[in-house]
C-alpha cells in the first residue's frame, strides 16, 4: 500500500514558497559586471589572437604540402613498377638464350 506523506509534501511546499521569495544574490556583485566582462573578453581575444595569426600564415605552407603530396601520389601511381614478374621474365630469357647457344 502506498502511503502519501502529505505532511512532508506540505512542509516541502512551504519551504519552496518561502525560498522563492528570498533573493540569495548579493546585488553588490553585479556592480561593474559588464565592465569586468568586456575586459575579460578583450583578454580572451588577445590570448587567442596570435594562434589565429599563425594559422593564417601557415595556409600557404599547408597548401604547398598538399600540392607536393598530390604530385608524389600521381607520380608513384603512373610510373612502371619493377615487379617480381619482370625480374623473373628477364631471367627466363637469359636462361633460354644460354640453353639455345649451348645446345642444351
Amino acid at each position, binding site marked *: 500500500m502506498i502511503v502519501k*506523506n502529505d505532511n*512532508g*509534501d506540505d*512542509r*516541502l511546499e*512551504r*519551504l*519552496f*514558497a*518561502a*525560498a*522563492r*521569495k*528570498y*533573493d*540569495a*544574490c*548579493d546585488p553588490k*556583485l*553585479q556592480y561593474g*559586471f*559588464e*565592465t*569586468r*566582462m*568586456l575586459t*575579460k*573578453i*578583450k583578454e*580572451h581575444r588577445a590570448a587567442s589572437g596570435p594562434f589565429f595569426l599563425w594559422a593564417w600564415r601557415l595556409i600557404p605552407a599547408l597548401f604547398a604540402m598538399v600540392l607536393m603530396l598530390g604530385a608524389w601520389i600521381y607520380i608513384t601511381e603512373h610510373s612502371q613498377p619493377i615487379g617480381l614478374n619482370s625480374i623473373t621474365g628477364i631471367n627466363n630469357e637469359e636462361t633460354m638464350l644460354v640453353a639455345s647457344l649451348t645446345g642444351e
Partner: protein
Amino acid sequence: MNAPQQVPTDERLVKASLSGDDEAFGELVRRYKQKIFRLASRFARGSDELDDICQEAFIKAYQNLGKFRGDAPFEHWMTKIAVNVCYDMLRRQSRKRDNVPWDSVAFSVGDPPASDTPSGEEAWEILSQAMNRLRPKERLVITLLHLEEKSVRETATLTGWSEANVKVRAFRARKELRRILEDDREKR
C-alpha cells in the same frame, strides 16, 4: 523636437557584437545580468562561485553568438547557456564530493526553523543544504521547477531533456529531497 531614441533590439545588439562592437555586447550583459545572477545564485555556494558562473555563462554566450539564430528570444538562449554552466558546475562539485571520505562529510541541513513557516532566508538555507546532497540532475530539475517556477516544457527546453524525463526526474528528486529533510528532522 528630437525624436525619442529607439532602444536597439537584442537581435540588433547581437549583430553589432558579431561585427566587433564590444559595447553592444556590454549592453546585452547589462540587460540580462540580473536574471543570470539570480538563476546562478540558486546553484552557487558563495559569491566567488556565483561571479565565476556568471562570467563563464556570458563568455560562452559571446563565443557562440554566431550560433544564435534568433528563432527564440535572446533571453531564452542566454538562460539555456547559464543552465548548462550551472549543471557543469554541479557535476564538478559532485565529482569532488565523491572523492571526499564519507566520515568527513557533514550531513546536517542546518538549524531547525523557529516557526513552522520559516522566513525566506531560513527556508533557502535549509533547502540549499539539503539540495547539496541531491544528484546534479535532481538538483537542477528541482531548482528550475520549484524555485524558478519554470513549466515542465520550459525545463525540458532548458535542459535538453524530454518532458517525460523531466517529470520522472522531478518526481524522484522531490521524493529524495523529502527523505533527506525528514531524516534530518528525525535526527534532531
